[in-house]
């Protein structure tokens, strides 16, 4: 860890002042601290070294609520993962959200991590995490990518580039991208709201740029629309260990099933892509079809048609297809 300034932000006014200050010091690396489960982890490893930390846990009054409108669920960015996962109405009305949070990390981490921080968690690629590896374009632009020819069993096969194959590690992000959530971002100029799928960037030639957030901008909350598919939704996470492990492959799926016909379906895939990944083509395959195994298998194939693999992660195509098929079968059988 390298030294840094520590400041508590307890009011929106203090936040605004801090953002204003940051504007004047554009090249000073400032990080917001909420749960700290990614930030402090990577700071201890020496991978991240912000000059200043703004502890925003004092803003829970402003950004720490779960609320409901007629047409959407609102999640404050400082809601803890466990609080959202345990929320009875989220469990019943948005199973995919509750499950994606429940199946993530450990009770300790879920108690600490905020939803805003969760969607920004960094990849688990150890070539990125550990500064002892010299080739990592994400950590050190232009240095290369050791994962290409190295250990890559857990790396991405969708949305990859020649510069980076690091997988986006999150679970909740898959639920948000599947449900077409929107994200509130507070910056110096005020709040902007983006479709969640626009928040993250695929690596392309600049893997160091992971999101569209500008310096000083803070995620303050999420809006998740309520639709005829949200109750029939689930998160299936496949991993070596039964709990406390990142996904090898996961699927966040939601379906509007009417008269045994798929009217609408949402599919997002985790563990296989460089960012929260929506499988639009697979969804298109299914709309208007009956929910049966051949339809699901065909859609699963389409979902991975664009996969680019390395020797260590080639299995993820097959596993991904099986995972999605299994998730869709389970979804069709759900009692709602």
């Amino acid at each position, binding site marked *: *860890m*390298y*030294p840094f300034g520590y400041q508590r932000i307890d009011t929106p006014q203090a936040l605004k002042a801090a953002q204003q200050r940051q504007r004047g010091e554009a090249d000073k690396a400032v990080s917001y601290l909420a749960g700290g489960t990614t930030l402090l982890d990577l700071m201890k490893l*020496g991978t991240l070294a912000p000059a200043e930390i703004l502890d925003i846990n004092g803003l829970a009054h402003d950004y720490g609520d779960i609320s409901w409108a007629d047409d959407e669920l609102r999640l404050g960015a400082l809601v803890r993962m466990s609080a959202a996962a345990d929320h009875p109405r989220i469990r019943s009305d948005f199973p995919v959200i509750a499950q994606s949070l429940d199946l993530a990390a450990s009770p300790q981490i879920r108690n600490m991590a905020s939803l805003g921080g969760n969607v920004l968690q960094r990849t*688990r690629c*150890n*070539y990125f995490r*550990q500064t*002892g*590896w*010299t080739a990592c374009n994400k950590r050190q632009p232009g240095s290369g990518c*050791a994962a290409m*020819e*190295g*250990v890559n*069993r*857990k790396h991405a096969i969708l949305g990859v580039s020649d510069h980076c194959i690091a997988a986006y590690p999150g679970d909740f992000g898959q639920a948000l991208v599947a449900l077409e959530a929107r994200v509130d971002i507070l910056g110096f100029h005020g709040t902007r709201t983006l479709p969640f799928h626009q928040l993250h960037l695929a690596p392309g030639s600049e893997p160091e740029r992971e999101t569209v957030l500008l310096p000083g901008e803070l995620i303050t909350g999420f809006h998740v629309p309520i639709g005829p598919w949200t109750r029939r939704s689930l998160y299936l996470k*496949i*991993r*070596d*260990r*039964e*709990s*406390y*492990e*990142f996904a*090898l*492959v996961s699927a966040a799926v939601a379906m509007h099933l009417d008269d045994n016909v798929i009217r609408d379906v949402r599919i997002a895939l985790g563990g296989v892509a460089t960012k929260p990944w929506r499988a639009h083509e697979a969804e298109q395959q299914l709309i208007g079809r009956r929910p049966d195994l051949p339809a699901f298998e065909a859609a699963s194939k389409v979902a991975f048609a664009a996969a680019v693999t390395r020797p260590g992660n080639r*299995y993820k195509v*097959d*596993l991904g297809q*099986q*995972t999605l*098929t*299994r998730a869709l079968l389970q979804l069709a059988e759900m009692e709602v």
Partner: protein
Amino acid sequence: MAETAEGVIGKDVARIDGARKVTGAASYGSDFALPDQTYAFLVTSTIARGRIRHIDETAARRVPGVIGIYTHRDIAGKVKAGKLMADGGYLGTSIQPLTSPDILHDGQIVAVVIGESFESAREGAYRLDVAYERQPASASFDDASVETVAASEASKTHEDPKVGDAETAFQQAALRIDVSYSTPTQHHNPIELFTTLCHWSDGKLTVWESSQNVWGYKYGLAEQLGIDPNDIRVLSPFIGGAFGSRGSLTPRTAIIAEIARQLGRPVKLVPTRDQGFTIATYRAETRHHVKLGATPDGKLVSLSHEAWEVTSRPDNYMVSGTKATTRLYQCPNIYSKVSITHADRNTPGFMRSPPELPYLFALESAMDELAVATGIDPIELRRINDTQVEPIKGLPYTSRSLMACFDAGAKAFGWHERNPKPGAMRDGDWLVGWGCASTMYPTAVAPAAAKVRLMPDGKAIVQTAAHDIGTGAYTVIGQVAAERLGLPLANIEVQIGDSDLPPAPVAGGSNTTASVCNVVAKACDRLRQQLFQQSNAASATDISGMPLDAVLNDLPKDGIEAYAENLPHGTTQEGIGKLYHGHSMLAGGSELKDRIQFAFGAEFVELRIHRLTKEIRCSRLIGAFACGRIVNPRTARSQLMGGLIWGLSSALHEETEIDQASARYYNDDLAEYLIPVNADVREVEVIFVPEEDKAINDLGIKGLGELGNVGTNAAVANAVYHATGFRIRDLPIRLEDLLAVES
């Protein structure tokens, strides 16, 4: 005495150190703190082979609180490299960092930064600029420039057990199994980090470090630092997991001691988890070629086991598990050969059941393949080949209850309900697989010494430099003393884990209970003898049952003391001399001239494998074990249960992945180096099969700490085959190995 102490040995009692452990009061290495202590943070190499070209300390020295930076420029000539334990030394590696600018493996210590706080030392370490001259490095079997030599060439004492003509018998056999297996690099990963605290006072060194071998550490450090062993004290009252990783001295200890000497202040090192992968030892990857020839009715006529193990460039470390695999079944023709492959790696070392785990995985998988080939039930196949006479030298086993274990385990498991056809058993979307395998572990006992002091208030203190690595040594030692002295267990204070106490062997090879309990019993008997002879209460032959009450009042104020040494079967007087120099003369297993000493067991696994996504979950684990006299069923059960879960972990999860291009470890943290969590472990059952072995030692104790995790590996692989029809011969078994299974 209000409470009778008879039958304390064998009694199911809670561990006597429990209260300290559940309240946080038990102190492990880094829990100790000294006034004026400084903190050390290691800088380790990011290359696996080459040289340090240059170290720039400027930025690191500027960090507030950094008070020292130690590199080979400061340590070379002050700390000597030592010999491997196997070569008569005390260390787990002959590679001693900071003695030259040479780098022989990934993560080698290249500098130690000392700070007034942990945080300042860490920042200083991060700011230390080390430039390397990098050379190509090779990590494992298939890499260029590794060097493979036969173990018999590498070591004069190595023997490859053989009998008859295995090749001819194999060629003539009606049924032949000819297969290859492999096991990966694994790391012990005890939850306690590899910490060290060193303090000098009046020329004497005290080291607080979790150790399985405090006397060995004392003598090893003396040699490395060039000082008198009597000026060194190693303290290790509680040990946060060891599994072999703390049996031999690691190079860090002498370095920290030397820095503390130069600095004139105590130094505390708390390395990171990832540094633990390279500053200590690990289980090396192995490869196996097994050939079994059998008659149509399953009788083995030929058994051949050839194996290869990875080691470091300079060291000939090897485990040679053929010593066990050639002693499991009756077979007239046996061939074995072990080779080692030198690569650019840190030196591997003992990890729970070092030889038996990888080697029995191969043999017991092959036996299952033979069972399939012959159509004979796997348990019956083992019964057909069971023996009471060891096949290589024709010696008797002191006791061998393998089939009794299979029978007890099969009954508890419900094995008779097994449909042998692969893929035939299902539970909804889950394929169910049942597998079993034999387990075995040599019983070795070493010379040991102990002191017992009885006080007039009826309390006794037992002192021996043994180690409780979580096994329950405190408790079983207390139980033996309680029974032999005729006192309640609560009256016994057990002092261990301190090199100032009478010497005991390394807590390795599952010898502690047998070695230490026998010598403690002897010391207690001697004390009673002294006591009753002094008070003329009885003849020496009739004192074991005498109540102490009558004589306590006559004791001097500071009590009386007895000291004992024990030379187990197969050891010589030389062993006592070695004991007092920190060497453990372990005798047993297949190494004795007149008999064979092993504990045996049978392990059963039930797996569920999802028909689509193929993740593998273990729903049941049952082990039946015969290991002589059980001193404490509660702590023994813990050891065996932990072993079963270790075996499961090894079969399905554990693998240190290596970046081939750089010969560096990749997944060096507990998020990516997987061990099971609570939800991965469902039903686990341990069955003790009664076994009386009067020959093995006075108390009839066999070691059991490493028996549990041996057979599980093959039992899991055999269950995977049963569930899917896929034979996976390379550990760990992962879902991608099974994606092609049609279901």
